[in-house]
């Protein structure tokens, strides 16, 4: 069959009853193929898919409200956190290395109390010096003085404070 005529038949420009027998036969084959295509494409959506689709729609519908709620909750939490921490803050200042060392040794013993005072006094005088070497010397002197009480020393302990 002529291509143009075949297309015109398919577009229903030529009525079916005006077709020749061979054309009808050819068309019948084509229509059966269309039937197969229709069968391949036949689709019945499931109830499960309907539920899922409508659930997606509901989620999309409520999304702006959920975002708004989340933002509001974050805002309230942020304001609460800021107000809480500004009212309950303890400022901690960093002290010198000698002070930290004394802390490492412990704070309960009398020896360390004394040592700490001396170290503090030393730290004030020799801030820019060779800290480590000076600290060792100072510790030796302090410990030597306390363990050998009979030996006179030129080290002054009059600065020890018991109320520190």
């Amino acid at each position, binding site marked *: 069959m002529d291509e143009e005529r075949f297309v015109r038949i398919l577009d229903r420009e030529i009525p079916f009853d005006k077709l020749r027998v061979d054309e009808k036969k050819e068309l019948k084959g084509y229509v059966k193929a269309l039937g197969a295509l229709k*069968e*391949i*494409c036949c689709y019945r959506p499931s109830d499960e898919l309907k539920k899922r689709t*409508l659930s997606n729609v*509901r989620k*999309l519908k409520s999304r702006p409200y959920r975002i708004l709620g989340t933002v509001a909750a974050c805002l309230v939490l942020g304001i609460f956190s800021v107000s809480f921490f500004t009212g309950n803050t303890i400022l901690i200042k960093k002290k010198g290395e000698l002070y930290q060392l004394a802390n490492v040794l412990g704070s309960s013993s009398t020896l360390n109390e004394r040592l700490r005072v001396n170290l503090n006094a030393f730290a004030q005088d020799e801030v820019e010096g060779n800290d480590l070497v000076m600290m060792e010397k100072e510790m030796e002197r302090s410990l030597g003085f306390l363990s050998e009480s009979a030996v006179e020393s030129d080290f002054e302990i009059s600065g020890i404070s018991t109320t520190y």
Partner: protein
Amino acid sequence: MDEKKLIDGLKKKKVWAYEVLYDEYAPRLGSVVKSYLGYDDVEDVIQEVFIKVFKNVKKFRGDAKLSTWLYRIAVNVCKDTLVKRKRNNEFLTDFRESEDKVTFEPPATTNVFREVMDEISFEELMSVVAKLAEDDRLLIKLRDIDDLSYEEIADILDKPVGTVKSRLHYARKRLKELLEEVGYIG
């Protein structure tokens, strides 16, 4: 239901409108998707179409029919899916092609068989149709099965009417050739 009322409901994001839309259009959309993509991804595409409808329904001005607009969204989602599928699952495509070859029954060649059978089996007919390109299948489906006008198809595919006519002509010719190859017509 009145289409205008339905569109109003969709624009106001009423769930009942989406339910009506699903009941009325999901089978038709699924059918178009299936003609384009085959069995896989139909449900995913339908869900994606409804999400796109929800997001873009306010842009729908009503120039075209609602069905045309829905078909267009479905076809676009199908195209995206096909691109993704081709990009990510080449091995799967190969597998599917080889699977087709396995299930394809060779066409009848002898007159004796033709006399007995008188016509090729329905499965063979289906495998012939499956040999058509996705675009050709879609065009034939929209025009010869769903009976849409050339203008509507042009709207759906976003192509000029002339292009649609020539491509449909080619698709029909291709199907006819395939049917002739297996000796079904001609």
